[in-house]
């Protein structure tokens, strides 16, 4: 059983990969997996491919995108009835990769822990949001382009279905 990586380990990894020639890399330590990309698309890895212009812009500026694909969902301040997937960061929640495109996920969809259900934009950096747990999605509590806080419930999920 691998030891749990510290935040510093992850940062070191990002710094190392950022200076290397890899286009993308997926690394797993124990139950945490990290997907990094030096280009504007993710190639393979745990997170679903996400291609959005602002990510490319952010990456061009030299900022790597870090996606903790299987991060534990944080506790929500006021959880509605049933289980929810909560925002793992403050930002603006988007349900689709670009305006007019299909939503990443719809109510009724069956998702796995690594299924992307949306994007949260924080200071122009796009972060794909993984479901974090397997189940069937219910109603979206956060609307497209809604400002969310850390812990804001995004969508209801039935993990017993």
């Amino acid at each position, binding site marked *: 059983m691998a030891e749990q990586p510290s935040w510093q380990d992850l940062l070191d990894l990002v710094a190392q990969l950022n200076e290397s020639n890899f286009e993308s890399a997926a690394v797993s330590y124990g139950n945490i997996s990290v997907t990094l990309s030096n280009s504007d698309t993710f190639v393979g890895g745990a997170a679903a491919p996400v291609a959005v212009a602002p990510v490319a812009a952010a990456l061009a500026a030299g900022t790597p995108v870090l996606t903790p694909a299987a991060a534990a969902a944080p506790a929500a301040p006021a959880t509605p009835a049933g289980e929810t997937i909560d925002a793992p960061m403050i930002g603006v929640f988007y349900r689709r990769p670009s305006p007019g495109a299909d939503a990443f996920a719809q109510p009724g969809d069956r998702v796995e822990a690594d299924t992307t259900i949306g994007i949260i934009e924080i*200071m122009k950096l796009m972060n794909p949001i993984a479901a974090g747990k397997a189940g069937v999605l219910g109603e979206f509590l956060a609307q497209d382009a809604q400002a969310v806080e*850390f812990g804001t419930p995004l969508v209801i999920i039935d993990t017993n279905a």
Partner: protein
Amino acid sequence: MTDKPVVLVANRGEIAMRIIAAARRIGASPVLAASTADADSPAARAADRVIVIGAAPANQSYLRPEQVAQAAVHAGAAVVHPGYGFLSEQPKLCELLEEEGIAFAGPRPETLRAVGDKGSAREVAIAAGVPVAAGVEIADVSNVVHLGEQIGYPLLIKAIHGGGGRGIRLVTNPEELQTLAPQAAAEAEAAFGNGALYVERYYGKARHVEVQVFGDGFGRAWIFGDRDCSVQRRHQKLIEECPAPNLTDARRKVLHDSSRALVEALKYRGAGTVEFLVDTETEDVVFLEVNARIQVEHPVTEEAFGVDLVAAQLRLALGQDPELPEVGPVPPAAVIELRINAEDPEADFMPNSGTISKLSWPRGPGIRIDTQIEEGYKFPPYYDSLMAKLIVRAHNRDAAVAAIRQAARNTTIEGLKTTLSMHDFVLSHPDFIAGAVPTSWFGPTWEARKENNA
């Protein structure tokens, strides 16, 4: 609906309460950016709105510039006040906010960079004519004895590119200097990739005296006297006072005039502190560093001069007149502040957390308490141990010492260990009562007390 400007408070604890009060004072609407641990804190309740920016550990919330900047966008903030610590001196937050057209209640990013690194701060100070410790670069590590004669002993060998207290050696005689210089160069080479060294005069019995400054960002400077913060344990300030006691007019003039020159040279924006060592064995006064933020101990200056420095920071950031007066070098009152920490002074100042089961503060003229703790408050384990600041103003220092000693004795905090008993010891000690103890005074004096009691 409201057209009040929104002040985003990017901090926690007592300073969050302080910034909220200042925002109210200028008619603004305070919004708190909080971690989950503080989402229901007294500061959160005092604000008009709370925005949860991240998880409890500071490196997932209060230390993340992009999360704070995003919260400022969400809040529709006109200005972000960073308090002290956390992101207060990080150019990154300031730059992110500038991109969004949101003001930062602090200096410009280039000023933060210029004074943030010790080497560059020393250069800035020298250029502005601020006295610094005598120092000279070592050209040849095998030929250093003449440098020792030039500087005098004891002295410090410092790595020019060192930081965080690393790469510093104390040297007391020429033989040591000759032996240690090549070693220090090799260490500096290994640690910092550059073996460059300089030797600097060492002051083993100096006081910590600092000058409160404020700049309008265009070269105008206000000086609000000085503070003595020499009661320290391991470089952590415990007690601060304004004005610094037993300071000659000549020394005070050097401190104030050189601080003013520094503010003018930097076109410094907002509140800041210029820190000095004031030697007790010679007439020397030397520059330490610039703290480009509001400091924990700012209330002693506010009470002594009757000003609101935090409101002035917010007004300036909002493009308004900071409404500060020109004042003389010495205030008309003496003010002392005690930092009451959640630490056990009998157990090597070990921090502790827990629920405040009983709390009662003294009342009376000249007493101010800056805190967010209240009965039932769960003091969290995630952050620093400062619980409250007890500040007392009186007509002179003797009266202030006597008054704050009684105020501390009339303070009740139950539910966890605090440093109140340590404060009583210091406030009753003849050395402190006499004034002007050096920074090296508290540590051994406190240890000796325990031995005497054993």
